[in-house]
């Protein structure tokens, strides 16, 4: 009997397949297609302190094996989220990883205080790939000091109740250096990787296609970047659990990230193309692991790092 369970900084999930923040709506949208309890956990859309309209349209451009998006963290704000979205997910018995995003270091502290002790919440993803309004809009996760400050503020407000995962941007020179900073600041685990900043220019209008000009690239186009980042961080910090993501659309794709060192797999853009992508990936990954002789999912995590002799 294959043991599909995985462990993420003290949280045990029955299987390692989770959604990616911002790719599963409030959960209600997908619940028509499969029970949310089938997921290892649902990762909710990054929530901020206040309601947010997000960016103007066009917000999206399809690219080869991927897409650019510039949603701008549209969302209802933490009050409405706790009042409406969380109780509904609890009513479905879903395991929940809440993703939080701030505009200032203090925002992260305030959000952490709101989400630290909620039934069914099995983890907190700290999305630090957001512009810091107090520092010329520089993205928190792109510099070691601001990445550290954001995570420290979450850690100070969340004890051992629930593990916290720092979600990092791949748009840095040395992702291992950022990973070390956030782990030293108290992150229990890491979420790798966020989207890659990109741009599409419409050759008919001869202007950028998105209203915001730039957007985050996701989908299979970025998968090799995710595999590389996860592999590098796993090699440097082998004890830190990683939620891996980046263009996973099949069980084979998920297996690549697992072998690189991911203890859980987030599925994002693939859900846009197929509402049941997570279920397909879950089944395919299990088959691939059993075909390769694994009895326990966790034995495959980081297996690509084994010595030549093994």
């Amino acid at each position, binding site marked *: 009997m294959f043991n599909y369970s995985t462990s993420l900084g003290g949280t045990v999930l029955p299987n390692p397949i989770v959604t990616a923040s*911002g*790719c*599963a*709506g409030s959960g*209600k*949208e*997908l*619940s*028509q*297609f499969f029970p949310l309890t089938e997921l290892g956990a649902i990762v909710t859309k990054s929530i901020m302190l*206040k*309601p*947010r*309209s*997000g*960016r*103007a*349209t*066009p*917000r*999206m451009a*399809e690219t*080869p*094996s*991927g*897409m650019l*998006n510039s*949603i701008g963290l*549209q*969302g*209802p*704000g933490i009050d409405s989220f706790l009042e409406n979205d969380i109780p*509904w997910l609890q009513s479905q018995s879903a395991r929940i990883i809440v993703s939080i995003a701030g505009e200032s270091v203090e925002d992260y502290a305030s959000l952490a205080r709101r989400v630290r002790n909620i039934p069914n919440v099995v983890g907190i993803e700290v999305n630090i790939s957001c512009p810091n309004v107090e520092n010329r809009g520089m993205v928190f996760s792109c510099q070691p000091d601001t990445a550290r400050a954001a995570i420290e503020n979450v850690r100070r407000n969340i004890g051992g109740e629930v593990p916290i995962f720092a979600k990092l941007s791949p748009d840095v020179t040395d992702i291992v250096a950022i990973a070390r900073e956030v782990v030293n600041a108290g992150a229990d685990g890491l979420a790798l990787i966020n989207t890659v900043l990109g741009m599409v220019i419409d050759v008919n209008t001869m202007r950028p296609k998105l*209203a915001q000009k730039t957007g985050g690239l996701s*989908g*299979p186009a970025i998968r090799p970047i995710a595999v590389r980042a996860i592999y590098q961080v796993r090699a440097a910090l082998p004890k830190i659990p990683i939620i891996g993501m980046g263009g996973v*659309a099949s069980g084979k794709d998920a297996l690549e990230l697992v072998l690189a060192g991911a203890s859980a797999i987030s599925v994002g*853009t*693939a*859900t*846009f*193309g*197929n*509402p*049941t992508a997570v279920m397909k990936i879950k089944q395919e990954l299990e088959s691939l692991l059993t075909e390769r002789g694994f009895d326990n999912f966790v034995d495959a995590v980081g297996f690509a790092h084994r010595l030549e002799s093994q």
Partner: protein
Amino acid sequence: MSAINSRAVQCSAQVVSNKKVGAYHHIILSVDSIAASARPGNFVAIAVGGASSALVLRRAFAIYRAADKGSAGGVIELVVAPHGEGSKWLTSRQVHETVDLVGPLGTSFGIPTEPVRCILVGGGYGSAPLFGLAEILKARGCRVDMVLGASSAGKIYAPLDGKRSVSSMTITTDDGSAGMHGRVSEALPQIIEENGSELIYSCGPMAMLEAIQEIADKYNLVHQASVEESMACGIGVCMTCVVPLRGSDGVIRMSRTCIDGPVMDGADVIWNSRGSIPEGTWGA
């Protein structure tokens, strides 16, 4: 379960027929239960390009007509313009091939409970969902005047059998190659005045819908518009297809055209806002 996507199912839909009609393809798909639950204005989302495709996003298509055939299963019909890579792939499918389809999705046109004098306005292939709607309205005893516009004659989609349900049909083309030379919005005032129209249904490009809303405002008519903003998923998770929409509480929100639309009350849409967030929008 929740109310969102509550009738939607995913199925493998077989191509029953695929015929070129003018600038478009008329495609019939076998879809089992989807046909019975589809309502005029609903759409389906289809995966394109095959398993190893670089096209990762689903494509949304308005349902042209749906026919439930009981135990024989149901079919839906689509009218597709082969413009982009995805629609070119779909229009090149052969009979007996299958496509991965999710539907029915989105809101549908509201049907009056009593006979009402209606105008149905379609731009290009935006005419597709209006014929099924016309049949239902006719059956309810409504007067149905239809106005179809396009850039040129070849881009008007108006099948002969579709005309049975309409009391009058007006064609407009930008280049004058068929019908009236001009835009649908130029033809509307006279039709409204002659027939005492009370309700407008529309489907087509955003600029056309905005022009129709101005006319609806002038004549104080209800306007149900099927809006078009590019979608990535069609099921409400990607947040890309939003338009500013005034809610019943008076608050403007960036609302998903796949969940709160595609059919929206034209008076509630903040038109011509592409590229900006209207002042006062919730969370702006």
